[in-house]
């Protein structure tokens, strides 16, 4: 994994800023050099500044992005790092959302209980599904997980005492006692709107999720995941316990998805079975493709990109002649245009940029780092 040191590494100043990797410890470090720390402080500042600067609508988009990013990180651990393709991710989101709704809504438990409980239940069901991954490889696993989505939807529709059936059910806001994280304004007497509150609540959770994922992939299980992805039988021969790690990957990924689902439900406040079908499952796969398979930050970038693009197109659409904005107008609707872009992006990224946004980013970074010696 370690590369030959760059010629610039001999300049101490540059090394500290760019965090060039000269030792194995550098390779493993989460934050490298002054640049890394500066970036971190910048992110923290951005976190505080964002809700003050942008309006409720864009904050809503950001909150959706953060939730989607948590789910995408989970899928990337399974698909990107372990090579197990799942089209059933939305099922686990649904599982988490309904768990949150039931525990928080019926049993009136606080978020500190229902959020981890949703994740754990997701992981447990992941453990049950995991063994399929042992028997089936590659596409056939994708197909079983596809089946899982349909079976899951049937369960969500029919387990009416818990899920509310086709009508769906309410999911409570994240609260602990009198403190409502989705409405800090009222609970703390601060001048904060609901959207500002939820943004402040959900972004640290995303950071936590990303950090945990980073730690998984740079430690022993992560290496095992990647060995299985790259050459499964060879990995088994060098002593990686295939069964254990595949099932573990499934459980971890499902934990992420279910926790994200719980947040998603809590943010929407009302969930219906139709929200957890094949469409969103495909969307999460698309996120990791666009962001970058096998990278944690790529998952976030992909989620950001795919949630944001429709909104940007919407903002630009008055200038696009063939888009209609009312029931009267002829031409395609925004949704049709956005879906078209979504589908085309999947195809284009896979054909021309299989490493996704993170591939573009690392090329860009290498270029800047080595400038003017591009090679």
């Amino acid at each position, binding site marked *: 994994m370690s590369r030959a040191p760059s010629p610039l590494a001999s300049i101490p100043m540059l090394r500290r800023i760019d965090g060039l990797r000269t030792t194995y410890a550098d390779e493993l470090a989460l934050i490298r050099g002054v640049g890394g720390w500066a970036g971190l402080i910048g992110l923290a500042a951005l976190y505080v500044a964002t809700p003050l600067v942008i309006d409720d609508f864009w904050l809503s988009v950001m909150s959706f992005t953060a939730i989607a990013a948590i789910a995408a990180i989970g899928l990337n651990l399974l698909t990107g790092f372990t090579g197990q393709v799942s089209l059933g991710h939305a099922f686990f989101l649904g599982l988490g959302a309904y768990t949150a709704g039931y525990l928080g809504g019926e049993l009136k438990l606080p978020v500190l209980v229902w959020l981890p409980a949703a994740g754990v239940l997701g992981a447990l069901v992941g453990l049950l599904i995991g063994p399929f991954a042992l028997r089936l490889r590659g596409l056939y696993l*994708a197909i079983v997980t596809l*089946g899982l989505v349909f079976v899951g939807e049937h369960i969500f*529709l029919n387990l009416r005492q818990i899920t509310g059936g086709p009508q769906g059910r309410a999911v409570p806001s994240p609260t602990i006692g009198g403190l409502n994280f989705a409405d800090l304004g009222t609970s703390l007497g601060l001048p904060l709107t609901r959207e500002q509150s939820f943004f402040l609540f959900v972004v640290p959770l995303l950071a936590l999720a990303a950090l945990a994922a980073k730690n998984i992939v740079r430690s022993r299980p992560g290496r095992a995941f990647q060995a299985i992805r790259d050459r499964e039988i060879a990995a088994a021969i060098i002593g990686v316990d295939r069964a254990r790690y595949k099932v573990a990957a499934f459980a971890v990924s499902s934990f992420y998805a279910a926790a994200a689902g719980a947040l998603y439900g809590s943010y929407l406040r009302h969930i219906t079975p139709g929200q957890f079908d094949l469409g969103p499952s495909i969307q999460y796969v698309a996120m990791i493709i666009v962001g970058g398979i096998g990278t944690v930050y790529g998952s976030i970038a992909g989620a950001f990109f795919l949630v944001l693009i429709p909104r940007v197109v919407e903002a630009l659409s008055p200038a696009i002649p063939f888009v209609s904005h009312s029931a009267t107008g002829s031409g395609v609707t925004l949704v*049709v*245009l956005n879906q078209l872009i979504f*589908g085309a992006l*999947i195809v284009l990224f896979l054909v021309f940029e299989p490493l996704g946004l993170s591939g573009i980013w690392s090329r860009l970074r290498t270029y800047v780092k080595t400038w003017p010696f591009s090679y």
Partner: protein
Amino acid sequence: MTDFLQLAIQGVALGAIYALIALGFVIVYKATQVINFAQGELVLLGAYLVYAFNQTALPFAVSVALAVVVMAGLGWAIERTILRRMVGKPVFAVVMITIGLAIVIRQVVAAAWGFEDLLLGEPWAASRIQVGELGVNVTSLVTIASAGLLLALFFVFFRFTRAGIGMRATAIDQEAALAVGIPVRGVFAQAWMIAGGIAAIAGVFLVAFPATLHPGVGFTALRAFPAAIVGGLDSVGGAVVGGILVGLVEVLVQGYQPQVAPWLGNNFHVAAAYLLMIVVLVVRPYGLFGTRVVERV
């Protein structure tokens, strides 16, 4: 008993539609080892093309023939411009490309024809045949006959034609096929052409009366997916058996489960097809008639 026979007839008819769609999956998988998730959307587009040609006062049969030709051309174009670039890339990436294509095709259809329910306008329309207590739509009979005919054609194709044998050889081992002089790329293109053409035919039956034509039909076509898997993704006969099996399971479950096992919940038939698929995959990971693959490092 009449009850059962009536449902069974309907199940076989539905199964024949699924079989026609599943054949498209199988052809592409057999030649290229790719599951084509865009097959449902090819079916959708094929049906709309038949509708569009038929609107211009062309006779129905000519409209279908034209749609088959255009769809075959589209299949060829997809292989030529997109999938050929992906030879040697991970199968997962190729499959996701077909999902991306599916989304694009669906939106093109929506942009071109809108979301209205349309009537296909097939000549036999609402006519039916009555045998004693049993009634059956002519649509169903034509569907079953077409599925049977196509199955026979495929059998002949794979057994006796150069192209068919080349396709089988490619499916078994691409490198070996190349080594003995089979134009593997040509084989890929042929498979996609056939998949496109057959999609137009499947589309006709999927939206024929009493069904209607609308962009949601593409999702319905996805119901044929368990059929292809149950039969075995690389078996033409399997597609037909799988299709009919899944069709029968759906209609019979729909007919009897509400009385026999109401605790399974409303509309268990949809999940039943996928459960059948999962069970088959666990017991026989390569489907009922699929070829077992030997793993190598």
